[in-house]
């Protein structure tokens, strides 16, 4: 299977449904007769599946993977297997000391213990050690996710996105002319955060680590990667309100940046709204989600819903840095509303204009 790179790209395209029929047929004819080629296909299937779980696929590949590749039960079974293998390997990394290799004892090991009373003393000692480790983990130990998030928090003081990211005490982005902001981002902290959080995804691969890595990408401005990480986290934590809210922010930001107001941004806004609604359904007191939903409604020109959300937000936010921002949004919306109705009244009361007058006004 040497020199297989062009073959591999073709097979990868075949697996993702990218090949046109005239290129697909020769691939299938070869697959039918060539065992090595089939083996390569199966290897690439596994690698694509692992890449999907790691969030390593591009946005387009991820869509193709979900909508084309994953449509058969056999492949969904493989995805399940890949997910559990990933978790298993993360728990049993060979470089870790035996006592800390896994957060759960192996099934076979448990079976052996049950049937071997001679291990009673050892079991007691291990239990004591486990309690000690438990105390250490909860009281003293700071996980790589915590360290990464602490570094990310220290990276800057103002939110780099328009919405509110959960768990950060940053203030809103300063948008005054001439950039009156005194927020000087510390890029070293961002790099440190990236290292810790990537490591956490590689070693733990759980919802918290994917969620945290998603925040890192969001803050960094890599919105596609952030969204991919949040979706991966949602697979194992679908009831996490903060996760839905952060995914909502990422989609909102992507929609806002892709030519605001154009039809291109509507699917992102709509998807964002679904996740923000879900976040508020799961936790109605989550202020970040309420703030983000008000913004989302505003971007979608759903003015009365946006005004309701801003009012609800102002009632609940006792005095965070974001309260003033919310108040300004509501005032601007009310000003716009007044201006629109004044314009309407003016137009209705004005005599018909001569051609060209309207344009000059």
């Amino acid at each position, binding site marked *: 299977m040497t020199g297989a790179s062009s073959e591999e790209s073709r097979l990868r395209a075949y697996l993702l449904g990218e090949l046109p029929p005239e290129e697909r047929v020769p691939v299938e004819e070869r697959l039918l007769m060539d065992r090595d080629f089939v083996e390569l296909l199966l290897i690439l299937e596994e690698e694509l599946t692992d890449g999907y779980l790691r969030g390593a696929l591009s946005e387009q590949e991820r869509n193709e993977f979900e909508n084309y590749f994953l449509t058969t039960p056999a492949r969904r079974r493989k995805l399940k297997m890949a997910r559990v*293998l990933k978790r298993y390997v993360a728990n049993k990394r060979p470089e870790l000391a035996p006592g800390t290799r896994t957060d759960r004892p192996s099934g076979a090991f448990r079976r052996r213990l049950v049937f071997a009373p001679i291990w009673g003393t050892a079991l007691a000692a291990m239990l004591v050690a486990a309690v000690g480790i438990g105390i250490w983990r909860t009281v003293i130990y700071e996980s790589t996710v915590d360290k990464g998030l602490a570094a990310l928090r220290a990276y800057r003081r103002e939110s780099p996105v328009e919405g509110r990211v959960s768990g950060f005490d940053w203030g809103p982005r300063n948008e005054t002319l001439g950039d009156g902001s005194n927020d000087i981002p510390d890029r070293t902290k961002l790099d440190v955060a990236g290292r810790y959080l990537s490591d956490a995804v590689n070693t733990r691969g759980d919802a918290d680590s994917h969620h945290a890595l998603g925040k890192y990408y969001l803050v960094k401005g890599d919105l596609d990667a952030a969204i991919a990480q949040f979706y991966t986290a949602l697979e194992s934590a679908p009831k996490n309100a903060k996760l839905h809210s952060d995914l909502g922010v990422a989609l909102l930001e992507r929609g806002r940046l892709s030519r605001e107001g154009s039809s291109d941004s509507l699917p992102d806004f709509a998807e964002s709204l679904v996740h923000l609604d879900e976040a508020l359904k799961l936790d109605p007191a989550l202020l970040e989600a309420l703030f983000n939903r008000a913004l989302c409604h505003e971007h979608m020109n759903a003015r009365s819903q946006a005004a309701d959300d801003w009012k609800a937000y102002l009632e609940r936010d006792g005095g965070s840095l974001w309260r003033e921002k919310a108040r300004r949004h509501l005032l601007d919306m009310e000003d716009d509303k007044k201006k629109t109705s004044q314009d309407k009244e003016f137009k209705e009361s004005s005599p018909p204009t001569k051609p060209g007058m309207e344009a000059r006004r």
Partner: protein
Amino acid sequence: MKRNWELTGEAFDKFLSWLHPDREEAGKKYEDIRRHLIIILNCRGCDAAEELADETINRVIRRAQQMADTYRGEPAPYFITVANNLFLEYRTKLQITSELPADFPEPDPDPDDDREYDCLDQCMEELRPANRDLVLRYYSEDKQAKIDHRKQLADEMGIGVNALRIRAHRIRLTLQECLDKCLASGPVM
């Protein structure tokens, strides 16, 4: 499709000799073709891949009775054409019986996860220690670190990276089979 056609031993023999003059080789070829057809149909997004693969072979056997003596070249293109036609028929039938498109696969819920984990744990215990170690090491790193790590692992084993990739894949296939069996049986003790 002639549904009243019955597969006879004679017809199957003729089909095998069309695949290969040596009966043993022909048998192997037949097994490969069936397995590969299932994989191809899976790649097409067919969730009844086994049934369609068998039906494809049945149709080819039936046609082989008339054309085996005159057909020249590899049989592969013929199988692919028949499989394509069958797949199109299958898809049309599916569209008629269900107006809705195939559902997007829901993310697997977690309840089975612990059982899968226990099953995988049991399957890993059944591997030879060297293979178990290979799986743990092969899948343990990410991105660039993973590439370096696999290179180092291949060097240690005295084989190429591609050979290592194939070896890991074969062990993973064994694990998948073991996992499927374990999940189909009772709970893990």
